[in-house]
C-alpha cells in the first residue's frame, strides 16, 4: 500500500474548514482589500478570539493591545494571519481518536513545541514571514493522526513494539508500511491544496537532505523537531529524540552556544502557546 491509498481510502479524512479556504482565496486575490480579509475572519467569532489572543502574546510583544481583527491584519500582515488561522483551525479537526492510542493534548503540545521552536530558529536566521514555520511545525506530524484513524490496530501494535524494544516509531512505520507518517502528511497537505513549501517541509522532516526545493525550511523543521523532543514538549508517540541530520544542522549555520538561550526562549513562548489549544 502507498501513502496515497491510505489517505484516500474508505474512511473520510477531515477537510479544512471552509473559512480557511475563503481567507486563503482572499489573501491570494490581488483585488481584495485588507478590510475584505478582516471581514471574513470576523465572521467566525471563535477564530477571531483565538487570533487576537495570539497577536497579543509574547510571540509579538507589541507595545499596545490589538483589539480588533482589522488592526491585526494591518500590523501582523495578511499572509501571517492566514498561516495562524490555519495553525489554530487544524487543531480542532481530528476528533474521535481513542486516547489510549494517542493523547491528543500531548500530540498538539508537541506540534506547538515544534512550531514555536521553528519560529524562533527562523527569527534567529532572520527569515521572512516566520509564521509559515510555526504552521509547518503544527502540521509536521499530522500524518500520524491519519495513521491512527485509518489503521488503529496496526498503530497500537507499532506503539507497543516501539515501547518494548526501545525503537523509533517513524522507523517502524517505514520498515513495516514502506512509508512513514511524514509521507502520509504530505498526501494530506496535497489534498488540502496547501503550498508546496509546506508539503515538502512536512514530507522531509526526518530526512531533510532529500528536500531539494525548500532545503532551509526542511532543515529548520527537522532541527525544531529534535529540539522539541529534547525539551520534552508534549509527545506525538515518539519516545526518543530523533537522530539529528548533521547536514541540516550545518545548513542553519548556527553554533551550539546559541542553543541554550534559544531553548530558554522556546520554553517561555511554549508555555503561553499551549494555552491556545484549550
Amino acid at each position, binding site marked *: 500500500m502507498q501513502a496515497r491509498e491510505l489517505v484516500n481510502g474508505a474512511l473520510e479524512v477531515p477537510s479544512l474548514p471552509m473559512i480557511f479556504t475563503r481567507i486563503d482565496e482572499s489573501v491570494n486575490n490581488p483585488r481584495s482589500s485588507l478590510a475584505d480579509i478582516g471581514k471574513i475572519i470576523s465572521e467566525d467569532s471563535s477564530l477571531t478570539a483565538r487570533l487576537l489572543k495570539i497577536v497579543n502574546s509574547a510571540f509579538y510583544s507589541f507595545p499596545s493591545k490589538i483589539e480588533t481583527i482589522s488592526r491585526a491584519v494591518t500590523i501582523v500582515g495578511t499572509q501571517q494571519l492566514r498561516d495562524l488561522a490555519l495553525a489554530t483551525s487544524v487543531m480542532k479537526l481530528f476528533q474521535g481518536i481513542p486516547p489510549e492510542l494517542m493523547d491528543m493534548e500531548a500530540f498538539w503540545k508537541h506540534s506547538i513545541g515544534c512550531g514555536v521552536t521553528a519560529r524562533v530558529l527562523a527569527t534567529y536566521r532572520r527569515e521572512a514571514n516566520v509564521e509559515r514555520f510555526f504552521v509547518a511545525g503544527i502540521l509536521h506530524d499530522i500524518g500520524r493522526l491519519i495513521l491512527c484513524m485509518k489503521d488503529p490496530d496496526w498503530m497500537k501494535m507499532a506503539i507497543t513494539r516501539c515501547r518494548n524494544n*526501545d525503537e*523509533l516509531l517513524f522507523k517502524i512505520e517505514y520498515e513495516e508500511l514502506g512509508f512513514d507518517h511524514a509521507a502520509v502528511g504530505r498526501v494530506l497537505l496535497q489534498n488540502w491544496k496547501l503550498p508546496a513549501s509546506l508539503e515538502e517541509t512536512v514530507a522531509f522532516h526526518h530526512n531533510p537532505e532529500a528536500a531539494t526545493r525548500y532545503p532551509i525550511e526542511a532543515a529548520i523543521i527537522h532541527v525544531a523537531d*529534535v*529540539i522539541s*523532543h*529534547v*525539551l*520534552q514538549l508534549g509527545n506525538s508517540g515518539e519516545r*526518543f*529524540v*530523533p*537522530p*539529528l541530520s*548533521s547536514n541540516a*544542522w550545518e545548513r542553519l549555520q*548556527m*553554533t*551550539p*552556544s*546559541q*542553543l*541554550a*538561550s534559544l*531553548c530558554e526562549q522556546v520554553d517561555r513562548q511554549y508555555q503561553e502557546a499551549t494555552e491556545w489549544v484549550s
Partner: protein
Amino acid sequence: MGKVNLENVSPGMVLEKDVKERSGRVLLRAGTEISDRHMNILRTWGVTEVDVENLTQAEVNAQVTQQLDPEALKIAEEQVSHLFSHTDKEHPAMRELMRISVMKQLRKPTVM
C-alpha cells in the same frame, strides 16, 4: 583556549581573540579586558560566545557540575542518555542539547 558561552563570561576576563559580529566587523580586539560596557556591547550585537584567556567551556561546565548533587545528577544523566539513545552523542550540537536537557531535568523538582 576555546570558546566560552557569553553567560559564563564576566567582567575582568581577557579576550584571547578578536570578537566579530555576523558580518565580520570587529567589535572588540584580542587582549581587551572585558568591562560591564563591553558585556552590553556583546549582548546587543547578539554575540553568544567569545574566546577568553585561561578558560574553556569544558572547565565552566565541570565547575557547574561540581556544585550539583551527585546523586541527582547521575539519575538525570541516565534519563537523558536513554532519551538520546538514537542520536549521535558526539555531535557538538547534540552534546550541548544533552547538557541543556540534564540541567532541565535537575530544575524540574523545584518547579513542581
